[in-house]
């Protein structure tokens, strides 16, 4: 995919039939524009080039999807390396790869993250090293974009030095309830993320660094402390435990005590916010001259594979970009039941994807949800900037069979000039009574909402008394694979 990031799509620099090697640049950021380069995640041959994607058929050694550490320890995951799966992969349109999966599975999550450039020591690990003389150049050369989902080109984010007192925040919020890969990375390889964080801090001349993490992620915090105890510049800052929580301005609010308006950028508070994986990829670029060729993500749902025998979300580290999501499902042993939809991302902000949809630099998760609940009541949609947007709620309502009686937006949902919405104060409810009553008056006897956990609590409190049923846009996935539904907080 040539548009995996904010800004202009990359411009293809290869031709059909051309042989490419892993790490080779396939498409370049337009000169002077906001954008990012795209690199091949496999050795192979260019099958097709168009303005949307470059399709590469893999010819080289098969690739590795490393499960997160916990999964790697589970012998059941080895089943994922079943040769039968190899045939299943590589069918998708837009896929930059047609490779199989598996041979190196079980080799552990660290191996893929610390290759030696050009060594070719392990199958599929060799790559074409990037150029660049400064870290900032290397970040741009590597095509790094915000891995948390926004996809803002990291080189552009770090291009402007912060003023005195500048603060770089490592965002380890693990914003969505089903996701685990960022925390997994910190648990297994904290030094990689901290290394990238330090490179970024030097690049933007940040005086301090803060790691924003929820206190409940104790193991990750322990492993981080093992690294940063040697630094007096980096501290750990606990975030409130609500979902979704990774919003950049929310992290700044909680760490620096400054609430930015939705139209303000972090540097106005003297801050830069980097996602954990983004920091790790900065380390890869700066230390190993490695371009972005893969993505960490969390696979959620109910699958037949042994890794899912007693759990329903497994982090997968370094999934090759361009792999169709169907390959991940096959990798997990296939679905154990009918599914409602395939969701790319987490339950709050994810969007429906097709089996052929390729893994991109911003795909944080893949989930197959249970079949949709049927709703017979007229539904009111309460749209929140923190979760599913109006379009997605309307799709969900249609999938649930509910007639839409009315649509309201959360009071704090501020419309940006580009039409998107941002929450004015994420995770802090502004009250919902007026909206709920309005929807009730419009005939809604059930609500479908996309609010954060704090706002949801308010909605539930009100709806209980009306009475109106409440469905949350995340229900379908969280019933399948979640730690629990987003519902009321009882005092």
């Amino acid at each position: 995919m040539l548009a995996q990031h904010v800004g202009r799509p990359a411009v293809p620099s290869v031709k059909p039939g051309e042989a490419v090697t892993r790490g080779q640049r396939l498409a370049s950021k337009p000169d002077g524009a906001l954008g990012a380069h795209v690199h091949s995640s496999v050795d192979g041959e260019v099958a097709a080039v168009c303005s949307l994607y470059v399709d590469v058929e893999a010819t080289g050694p098969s690739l590795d999807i490393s499960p997160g550490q916990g999964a790697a320890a589970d012998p059941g995951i080895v089943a994922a390396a079943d040769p039968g799966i190899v045939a299943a992969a590589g069918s998708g349109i837009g896929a930059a790869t047609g490779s199989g999966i598996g041979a190196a599975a079980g080799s552990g999550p660290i191996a893929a993250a610390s290759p030696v450039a050009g060594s070719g020591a392990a199958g599929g690990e060799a790559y074409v090293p990037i150029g660049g003389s400064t870290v900032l150049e290397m970040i741009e050369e590597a095509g790094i974009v915000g891995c948390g989902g926004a996809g803002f080109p990291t080189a552009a984010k770090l291009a402007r030095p912060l003023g005195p007192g500048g603060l770089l925040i490592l965002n380890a919020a693990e914003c969505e309830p089903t996701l685990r890969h960022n925390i997994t990375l910190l648990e297994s390889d904290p030094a990689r993320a901290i290394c990238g964080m330090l490179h970024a801090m030097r690049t933007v001349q940040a005086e301090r660094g803060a790691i924003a993490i929820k206190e409940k992620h104790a193991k990750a915090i322990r492993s981080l402390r093992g690294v940063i105890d040697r630094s007096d510049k980096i501290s750990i800052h606990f975030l409130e435990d609500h979902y979704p929580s990774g919003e950049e301005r929310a992290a700044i609010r909680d760490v620096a005590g400054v609430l930015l308006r939705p139209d303000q950028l972090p540097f106005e508070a003297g801050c830069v916010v980097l996602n954990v994986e983004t920091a790790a990829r900065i380390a890869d670029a700066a230390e190993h001259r490695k371009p972005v060729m893969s993505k960490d993500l969390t696979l959620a749902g109910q699958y037949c594979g042994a890794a899912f025998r007693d759990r329903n979300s497994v982090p997968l580290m370094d999934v090759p970009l361009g792999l169709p999501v169907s390959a991940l499902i096959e990798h997990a042993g296939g679905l154990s039941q009918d599914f409602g939809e395939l969701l790319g991302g987490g339950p709050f902000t994810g969007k429906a994807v097709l089996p052929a949809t390729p893994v991109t630099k911003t795909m944080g998760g893949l989930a197959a949800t249970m079949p949709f609940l049927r709703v017979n009541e007229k539904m009111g949609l309460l749209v929140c900037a923190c979760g599913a947007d109006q379009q997605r709620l309307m799709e969900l309502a249609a999938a649930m069979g509910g007639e839409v009686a009315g649509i309201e937006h959360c009071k704090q949902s501020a419309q940006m000039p580009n039409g998107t919405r941002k929450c004015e104060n994420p995770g802090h409810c502004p009250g919902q009574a007026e909206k709920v009553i309005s929807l009730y008056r419009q005939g809604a006897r059930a609500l479908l909402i996309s609010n954060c956990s704090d706002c949801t609590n308010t909605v539930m409190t009100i709806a209980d008394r009306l009475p109106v049923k409440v469905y949350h846009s995340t229900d379908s996935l969280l019933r399948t694979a979640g730690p629990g539904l987003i519902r009321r907080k009882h005092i």
Partner: protein
Amino acid sequence: MSMSKEKAMAYLNEPAVLCCQRGKGTVISEADLEDPTIFADLQDSGLLSIPDGSLTVGDVLGMTLNADVEALTALRPSMLEGGAAKPAPSAAAGGAAPGSVTACGAAAPAAPAPATPGFGAAAGTAHFDAPPALPGGPVTIHVDSLQGLDISFPAGWPALYGLCGAVPGAEAPVAAASGTAAGGAASVPGASGAAGFSAASALGASGAAGFSAAAALGAAAGLAAHTAPAANPLTHKYYSVQNVKLGKKTSFSSGTLTIDSALTEKALSSSPLVKQVEMDIITPEKRHIFTNTIMDIMPVAVKCSGKTGEGTTAILDRVVFCLTGLDEKGVQIHEFGSCEGYLDEKAAFGRPGAPDDDDIIVRVNVTIQENTGMERRGPLAAHTACDVIVQSIRDVLKATDEAPAFTKTYHDTRRRGLPRVCLVKEIMGQGAMHDNILLPNEPAGVIGGQKNVDLGNVPVMLTPNEVLDGGIHALTCIGPATKETTRHYFREPLVHALAADEEIDFIGVIFVGSPQVNDEKMYVTERLGSWIGSLDLDGAIVTTEGFGNNHIDFAGHIAAIGGRNVPVVGVTFSAYQGQLVVGNEYMDAMIEINKDAGGFENEVLACSSICPEDASRAQLMLKTKMAGIPIAPAERKWSQAVIDGNQWLADQA
């Protein structure tokens, strides 16, 4: 939802209710407190109860919760650290917050209350000294900011000017009437006098309101204003018609109107969309007759001299044209919201826009090409065909040497120096059958006029006499109970009322369309606002026809006027079915024109349109607002009792 700082300051004396669950240790700010304007909604829905002893917003700001508290809980002292001393109840129930006049009168008892001066004013610019019992005895006002002017007048004055309950129907957030009295209004509660009318507002005056109170009072006291009749008055000559029949030649003599029945053939050829034209005469006793949907009621009028709005116009008395129609498939024109049925049941006879009880109706039924009933061209073709017939009668009438039965002359008098008032009439301009023809060649005609939709719905100013002389031809009778027919404009009660009002300078009538698209609505609204700003108005009345979509324009127009500090009154059908979908702070003085018992658009032609009674209430409401006298907030639901109460007051005035 939570409040802004400014809002919290305005509601310091309202109950403090948490908008969301808040944890122990929370220091309460306005962001934690629910907006009091929706309390009534919440209470109606069973979502909120406010027990006695609950604290007010002012009590709790800055206090700390001593426990976790659920959303929509009214805060009590036991929930706060230190237990927040609750002020004496009397103080809480007493004066409104500084600068606010919302509280006064809204809950006033029906019986006259003792005149406890409830001065909520931040700066006391006016003082009222009223005796406890209002009937009899003088009321003296001393107004400092008018440099010590003392005025004495009879206590009946409140009945003339003072008492006016706002009419509900304003589902919109119109709870606060605080916008009216800029700069410190003093208020005296009570002064009701209208038994059973509980929404009586307190009497007050604003020394700093934009309206020149001195001018109004001066006029009432007989001080001279510079009045100037228009150079060319308008004379309507009415010719009495006792009998109407179809014949071979159109003629009018000795009270008998004969219409050439072959005119239907001529009408048929007016447009290829017109497939059939029928005409019959319906005398008053024969109204129990089936009719297709009524598209318009039109007078027969012709200019004898001068342009529209001046000179002489000849009008047939006791006869009106009634245009009905359907398409070739048998679908009523403006299906959904059509009013086919028995004529005697489908029109509110006697309304300005309907036939009168003793009118002879010439019914022209037009069949138009199939599927064009919902397009602009279809209904327009029907109106054009009908106008062909009317024009033939106009030609005869223009040449008649019969003597008129009576004449009426309208002077378009300007009263310079008095408060400048404008009437803004919103007309439908969404296309399809929603259009209006402005200033046709002949009164209430079609030919020569410009279509509102083609003009882009932008505001167009007409003199009052241009309106009364058939300057508007209406094509808008879908939802016939709430729409204004051509005859309605010809007899518009608000134009008559304002033109006759000797206390104001009625500068004219602005017609502004209601476009289909939101962007266009905003465009039009802004154009109206610019007009208003340039006209140096002291007051305006905005009317609309229909309900629903056009209420967006209605609210926009009121805001465009109110936002320029011009007191504004809205007039609309709202009631039950047409509850306002939008609202704003300037919609605090609304006149309800519903006449249906259940509050519905009942598909009876002209039923819920503006009548002289509505006009008188609007007039009084505007003067009340212009004088800076607080208007009680609308009740939450449409209530005929409030309307009746206001009508009683208007009738007294």
